[in-house]
């Protein structure tokens, strides 16, 4: 028989600095990795200098310059500066721009306040309340009414339109998606059948087709005198489309919930709605956060398709501006700018999704 005394706990050996260890592990761990590292370095060497030269070192940052005085060796950022208002607001009337700004201002204020009270017991009510009331406020601000001059939707455009289309698509498709996901799991044959048919039909059709149908086919069902707003048609089309995808994402989450959770909810006597709302959905949605946000990011990018039915989102507006004779040949600047704006928005969404995952995590910390 042998008895061993308890060993001391020690720190791991640190013969090399962390930076060198990291390089060894990540860049030079094998022959093929060494080769890939050098190929990557060579590509960076090829690509980075011209990109930096064009965007920064040879670029003209003088915002008062015009197309001729700007020069051709680098980017002409005056193109963005002088068209910025149009990129953001589209053709929205000058004197009413404060309404758009107010709309954006309120949403920022709501988010800041929401993050301040997220520990409070009223947080959930605050979020739900905001989702119910804010769309109405935003609609009145943008469209007019209640004493505000009406601005028809064909004047909306640019980043404003992009955000409106994406936000409506996201906010409307989320609850609908939940319903269809539950419908697809339902034991009621008819509900299940309708959900499956809807989801599979919509997922089998490209968004562009749905938008065409919404703008060309839908009016056929209405009498000639009835003008059905073009933007509204696009919003309905996008919402119908997104609903099917969200439903499938959430169904994935629902399937990951162990049978024991349903049984425990049944055993304590909860009815179907209580079981779904209090036990199953919170867990399913939490699991689905990354995929839901991924699906919303895809939607945001897809909103650029509304240009094919004659709506001018940011991408379309920039395209239009580059064909303006005063700024001929400045296409690159325009699209680089759009790419950067969209990247910032989408990257923020992605980071926010990470934050949500951490916030709702109940794992051992």
């Amino acid at each position, binding site marked *: 028989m042998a008895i061993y005394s308890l060993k001391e706990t020690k720190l791991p050996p640190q013969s090399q600095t962390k930076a060198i260890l990291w390089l060894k592990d990540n860049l030079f761990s094998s022959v093929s990795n060494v080769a890939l590292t050098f190929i990557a370095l060579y590509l960076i060497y090829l690509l980075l200098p011209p990109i930096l030269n064009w965007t920064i070192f040879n670029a003209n940052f003088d915002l008062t310059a015009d197309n001729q005085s700007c020069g051709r060796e680098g980017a002409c950022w005056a193109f963005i500066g002088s068209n910025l208002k149009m990129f953001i607001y589209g053709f929205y009337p000058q004197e009413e721009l404060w309404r758009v700004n107010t709309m954006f201002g309120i949403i920022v204020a709501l988010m800041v306040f929401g993050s301040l009270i997220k520990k409070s017991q009223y947080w959930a009510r605050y979020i739900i309340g905001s989702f119910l009331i804010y769309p109405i406020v935003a609609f009145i601000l943008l469209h007019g009414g209640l004493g505000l001059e009406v601005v028809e939707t064909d004047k909306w455009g640019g980043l404003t339109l992009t955000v409106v289309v994406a936000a409506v698509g996201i906010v409307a498709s989320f609850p609908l998606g939940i319903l269809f996901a539950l419908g697809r799991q339902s034991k009621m044959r008819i509900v299940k059948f309708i959900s499956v048919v809807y989801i599979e039909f919509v997922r089998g059709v490209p968004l562009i087709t749905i938008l065409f149908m919404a703008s060309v086919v839908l009016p056929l069902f209405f009498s000639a005198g009835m003008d059905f707003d073009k933007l509204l048609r696009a919003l309905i089309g996008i919402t119908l489309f997104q609903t099917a995808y969200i439903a499938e994402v959430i169904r994935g989450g629902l399937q990951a919930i162990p049978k024991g959770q349903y049984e425990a909810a049944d055993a304590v006597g909860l009815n179907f709605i209580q079981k779904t709302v209090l036990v199953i959905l919170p867990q399913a949605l*939490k699991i689905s956060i990354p995929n839901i946000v991924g699906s919303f990011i895809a939607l945001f990018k897809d909103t650029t398709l509304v240009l094919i039915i004659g709506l001018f989102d940011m991408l379309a507006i920039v395209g239009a501006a580059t064909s303006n004779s005063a700024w001929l040949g400045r296409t690159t600047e325009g699209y680089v700018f759009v790419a950067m704006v969209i990247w910032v928005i989408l990257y923020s969404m992605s980071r926010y999704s990470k934050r949500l995952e951490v916030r709702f995590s109940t794992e051992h910390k």
Partner: protein
Amino acid sequence: MSELINKDIGEKDCCDIIEINSLNKWYGDFHALKDIDLKVKEGEIIVVCGPSGSGKSTLIRCVNFLEKFQEGQIIVDGVELSDDVKKIRQVRSEVSMVFQHFNLFPHLNIVDNLSLAPIWVHNETKQEARAKALKLLDRVGIKDQAEKYPNQLSGGQQQRVAIARALCTSPKIMLFDEPTSALDPEMISEVLDVMVELAKEGITMICVTHEMGFAKKVADRIIFMDEGQIVEENKPDPFFSNPESDRLKLFLDQILSQ
């Protein structure tokens, strides 16, 4: 007991809280329960044991209708189980269950796990439910974990929370479905201790378990099941000292030789 039952069943003992009459259940073509007859008196502690696949879990899961059955009759405290949702909920409000894998709600902290059903099913106020939850947590010895989440507790602690959650609705009957089978050996006794305490308090219990020490200590009756039927049923002493059927002898040999 209500008149209705007496008419249905004919004369019978006054205090049967659970009555199972010629219960048959199939999974597809598999005959899982065969002609089960079982009566449980109020306050009785029943232990059900048997080899795996013998139908013991299925049997107790029929009692709160987590499993549907095709033939036979189950009457719980005067209510006959059927597809009627109202009756099912009525039975479930008096019968609580503790599962092998705890099945706590991972998105709710411990207190909320306990007070969910009291608030939503039994219409208690948040304060009442919370106060009762803390009392029960104290009783199972984990009051200081009240604000934690299930995944932050050990298996033994989680199962004690599950027992507290089951007690939170003041049930007349507790069903235990192999409550210690998923636990590490050193955590089994902490759960069994809680169950022994419960047994002393006179609540009706049906426990599916392999813990023969527990059975000896608290059971009023032990039921041995095999291949979907009740093979032998006896008080603890004769059950262990004088098993009659060969299958029970074999089972006891296997389980006690460990």
